């Protein structure tokens, strides 16, 4: 096939400049690729390419630094918000954000996350909640739904045996230092647009020195859930969203 010349005026969509050409390791249907794209677009649109530092977690997005062309620090499991705290305090001119999953953020990193928010650190956390440890092979996480089957809850999550899931975003909304807490998704084009707006608002919030922002993205892990990408989206809508309802939870300014 002959190469088609694309005229600038006809170009309506393209890969964000900050997304590298590296082949992503994410499974087809996974939400990470979409959220990476939104993060890259917002950084570009805000003109912060040269002043952004991401902190990647342990989990599926451990290699986020391969895909978004900014400086990155790879944190130990759960410690991203502590790492980001210092990176931001020592370089207040930079946009510093963490990108974490539910195992990293709500299990092993709950302490670091909550205290960074409580202190009102001017950082942003992008929180991908797919209710499962994806990279490790589909074990139960703190946000795994009751009855949900995982590698460590093969007969479904039983509260007597495995405890209850918790809504860390709602908990964090009680903290004075956390000023913007929102829960989004990326399973439809409309949801993607809303999620991008939320990421932009969070990044602006942090650059304005208005404390801590959390963008939770209710996401799919079709491989871990053992569903097709389409079925995973449907399952998420029917099961995850009622437990983790979408929309802004808190949007305010730091108390005086």
């Amino acid at each position: 096939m002959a190469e088609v010349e694309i005229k600038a005026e006809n170009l309506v969509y393209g890969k964000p400049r900050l997304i590298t050409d590296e082949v992503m390791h994410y499974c087809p249907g996974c939400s990470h690729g979409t959220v990476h794209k939104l993060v890259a677009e917002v950084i570009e649109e805000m003109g912060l390419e040269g002043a952004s530092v991401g902190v990647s977690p342990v989990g599926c997005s451990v290699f986020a630094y391969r895909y978004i062309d900014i400086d990155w620090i790879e944190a130990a499991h759960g410690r991203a918000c502590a790492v980001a705290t210092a990176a931001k305090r020592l370089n207040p001119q930079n946009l510093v954000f963490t990108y974490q999953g539910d195992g990293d953020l709500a299990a092993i990193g709950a302490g670091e996350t909550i205290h960074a928010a409580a202190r009102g650190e001017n950082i942003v956390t992008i929180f991908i909640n797919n209710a499962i440890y994806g990279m490790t092979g589909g074990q139960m996480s703190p946000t795994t739904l009751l009855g949900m089957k995982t590698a460590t809850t093969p007969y479904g999550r039983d509260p007597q045996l495995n405890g209850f899931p918790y809504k860390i975003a709602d908990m964090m909304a009680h903290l004075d230092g956390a000023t913007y807490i929102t829960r989004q998704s990326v399973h439809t084009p409309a949801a993607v647009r809303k999620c991008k707006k939320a990421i932009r608002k969070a990044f602006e919030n942090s650059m304005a020195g208005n404390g801590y922002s959390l963008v939770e993205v209710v996401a799919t892990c079709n491989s871990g859930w053992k569903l097709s990408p389409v079925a995973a989206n449907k399952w998420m809508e029917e099961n995850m969203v009622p437990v983790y309802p979408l929309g802004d939870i808190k949007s305010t300014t730091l108390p005086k």
Partner: protein
Amino acid sequence: MADKEVKLMKGNEVIAHAAVRCGCDGYFGYPITPQSEVMETLMELEPWKTTGMVVLQAESEVSSINMVYGGAATGKKVMTSSSSPGVSLMSEGLSYIAASELPCLVVNCQRGGPGLGTIQPSQGDYFQACKGGGHGDYHLIVLAPASVQEMHDFVGLGFDLAFKYRNPAMILADGAIGQMMEKVVLAPQQPRRTQEELLAQCGKWATTGKGERKEQNICTSLELQSELMEKINERMQAKYREIEQNEARWEEIECEDADYIIVAFGSSARICSATVEMARKEGLKVGLLRPITLYPFPTKPIEALAERGVKGFLSVELNAGQMVEDVRLAVEGKAPVKHYGRMGGMMFNPQDVLDELKDKLVK
């Protein structure tokens, strides 16, 4: 702040003053006895108003060492301090910092363990400091101060070595050195590096934000391909061999003609220097070799003394016998090597050490 000042200060307080004066960019800590005066002094000094240094009380030692990791990744001169149980919590972070080849300074004002143990002085963390602590093949550069002045001097030295080798450095003090007051000459105030100076020094690796730079800077210790991970390990090991070659530091007191050598570091060495005087008065030729760096360990001078025909070595430590293993490795069977120690926060006196030396080596 005046240029050069002579003060009477606690070892822990001096750490804080030395940090500000050497142009440290950030301190992240968590209170624990017997080292809490470090952060307390920094909070009193309010260096953010003078030099712009960041001081932050974290929610745990796990968090404070990861703050140090985040700060070090951006090329800043950052540090923390703690005591034994807190340093155990930092071990994961120290492994990551060493593996990511980042510079930082950690002060361990040791207390007696294991477990919650006691708040009294100990040297029970020699293994933890020198043989790993965290997982994997890495080393900290370990400095052992024996005076309040050395507490001061090793802050600057620790940072210099940490940046020279892009490796975490540790000041392994103990509750006695941290809590005792002595005369100290404070260094003149150095300005913190400007961002231009920082970029000149660390621009190739520090995650400062790309700015005009084309390539990304990424601080990570992850490499899933074994062939590449082995190469990274080999590079780190080559660095450690270089450190071992160049950076061993020690002090010899009356070792030249000594028949018996006491090897002791930190507060133990202070006590043992009096033992040497007592022994010499009795006509017993005893010398003291004081390792100043515990890693790299001063193997060569100990080896040389053994080759010269020293009749015996006594490793005197406030623990159950840790450094003695390194002394034995250096002596390589050429002479008897014994250990004397006390634990649980108890100290020996110079006479105890002399009695043990006679009992174990002079027969």
